[in-house]
């Protein structure tokens, strides 16, 4: 068993982190709300470290690189649809999972047309139409769908969900770092916040959640390439866990910042707002859970550790 990422992948992550920090980090995200050049700067930076050379469909090696990129991108709230571009169906046509009833795509203006798919596999051409225009979805747009023949592959759907989870993981990791930094420095009642037992323990719980999510992300990515199941069970499970953990971590981190957590001068505020579309699209937590449960009831949730007869379906 090999749970730790290979050094090459970790290196790539460090390079991406360095590059994005150099390009402005969360400032890019902050600026992007009013200045479209910020998004272009983000893309330029990502292209320079090899965004367009990675094809996650190619195999686990590339997929791991893509995942690290999404994670690091999430940690800087990069104002760019990383997963969408990595899974593009043709040059200039990113891929997104949508709810066919209410199609919304985050960072939609990164392209003129998108390929959209439902979790069930229905395929569409998607054209961004109107901005959602909300502080908690500043880059999201509603889309007009035109049905296409064929079905979105299971691979694409799994990868989209898993890369989305990696993106959320990155957001959560940044939120925890911000919270830790803040509580060490901020004093109340004569002590740094980080001395209060409840705060310490709450941060400890967040770290457990994020570590667990990280491992589940790795597992779900690996299983995408090692099992030939038509089921989205593993991918849905990591999306669910990402929604659960990261939503909670963001709330705790924002809470610990007090009122300043809602002021855009503070990175945590930007992070919380920009994370909302990823947390809610294409499925809210309740829907993810219901879909996962249905899938488990049908396909089981065996994994490679258990003998399938007991943990199987039906």
């Amino acid at each position, binding site marked *: 068993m090999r749970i730790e990422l290979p050094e090459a992948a970790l290196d790539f992550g460090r390079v991406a982190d360095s590059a994005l920090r150099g390009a402005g980090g969360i400032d890019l995200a902050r600026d992007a709300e009013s200045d479209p050049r910020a998004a272009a700067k983000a893309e330029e930076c990502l292209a320079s470290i090899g965004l367009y050379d990675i094809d996650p469909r190619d195999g686990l090696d590339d997929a791991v690189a893509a995942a690290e990129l999404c994670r690091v991108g999430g940690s800087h709230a990069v104002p760019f649809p990383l997963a969408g571009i990595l899974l593009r169906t043709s040059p200039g046509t990113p891929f997104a999972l949508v709810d066919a009833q209410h199609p919304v795509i985050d960072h939609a203006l990164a392209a003129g047309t998108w390929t959209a798919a439902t979790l069930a596999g229905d395929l569409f051409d998607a054209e961004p139409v109107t901005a959602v225009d909300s502080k908690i979805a500043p880059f999201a747009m509603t889309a007009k769908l035109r049905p296409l023949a064929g079905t979105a592959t299971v691979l694409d759907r799994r990868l989209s969900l898993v890369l989305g989870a990696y993106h959320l993981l990155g957001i959560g990791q940044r939120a925890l770092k911000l919270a830790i930094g803040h509580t060490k420095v901020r004093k109340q009642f004569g002590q740094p916040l980080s001395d209060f037992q409840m705060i310490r323990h709450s941060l*400890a719980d967040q770290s*457990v959640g994020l*570590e667990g999510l990280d491992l*589940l992300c790795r*597992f779900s990515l690996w299983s995408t390439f090692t099992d030939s199941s038509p089921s989205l069970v593993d991918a849905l499970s990591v999306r669910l866990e990402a929604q659960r953990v990261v939503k909670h971590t963001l709330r705790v981190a924002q809470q610990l910042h007090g009122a300043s957590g809602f002021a855009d001068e503070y990175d945590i505020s930007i992070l919380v707002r920009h994370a909302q579309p990823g947390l809610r699209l294409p499925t809210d937590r309740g829907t993810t859970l219901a879909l996962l449960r249905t899938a488990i009831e049908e396909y089981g949730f065996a994994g490679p550790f258990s*003998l399938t007869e007991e943990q199987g379906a039906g």
Partner: protein
Amino acid sequence: MLDFTMGESAAELRGRLRRMVAEFFPADFLGAFTDDPADLAMTQQFSRKLAGEGLLTVAWPREFGGSDGSVWEQTVVREEMWAHHEPRGPQYMGLNWVGPAIMAYGTAEQKALHLPPIATGDAIWCQGFSEPESGSDLASLQTRATRVGDHWEITGQKIWTSYAGMAGWCVLAARTGPKDSGRRGISLFLIPMDREGITVRPVRAMLGPHHLNECFFDSVVATDGEMLGEVDAGWGVMRTALAHERVGIARYARCERLLWLLRDVLRHEWTDHDEGVRNDWASALVQVRVARLLAYRVVERQEGNQMVDLEASQARIAATTCDQQVAEVVSQLLGPRSLLGPAAGAPSHGAFEDHWRYAQAATVASGTIEIQREIVSRELLGRPAVG
């Protein structure tokens, strides 16, 4: 590159262990810790059987009676054993942390004396750490080992000593340093439980018989040769032992088995149940997988001889919440049936009620969840400036 397989031999081993347990134990077996001494006897025999097939101390070095197996094979054994109510009985302590502690810190004589019987399934150990006034604050323990001539005399009281009534040996923590020497004045001794001056009093508890005991030590003699590690250096050994103990029990494995057993028991009425409750069942399966992966991370680090304090505590926190979450799901799906004992026609011979009682203790066994959180927060934030 990432790889989450345990290897061909692991899958084979898993199947083999399940067959062995199914053939050896009756369907209503719920572990060694019952009022029926035959249950303990069965686990003794089974341990010897496992030993005979090289499956008891699978990952120990051959020189100490093991099969030089991989930590992953050991993990498979651990999982299958815990999932099936620990057919090795109290011996799992010896395998999980006593043996490894002796291997790491013991003298040649101690290794020769103690490791073979653990490996052949002939030794039961208990852990004499906690005291009435020293639970979470273990470093404050007061059982005193006084130097008398060429030996030590140990007086004090231990509490919550699991399986003390069944054990032949005890890893006993006593203070050899001055009164307020804290963690710097503790030494460990390897003491036979039949030595004069030791009294064991069972403590009836919610967990059932044998799990909790009080041990009284009245001027119990210990030789220098019975000290594990150096004088006043016991705390380091204890920390390692406790970290091993934290991941030694594959809680997630029993949780997973029970969740699927539940579905099987309820198969004719499954879709009658509220979707929300079935969703909780699915959620629990995900939490079980997460707890499992966190445990595997510890195993991987142990394989690489890396420090595991932080990771072990994180895994323990996840496993604890998992145990309790599963107990909740079971109680929601089974309703009052989940609280029936075996004599009242409980489903699965009372396995669910047994788990529920056990899950209540998960937050305090081998270090409360608060201690685990404190260990993790120290890594993240450093020590608190005050208190």
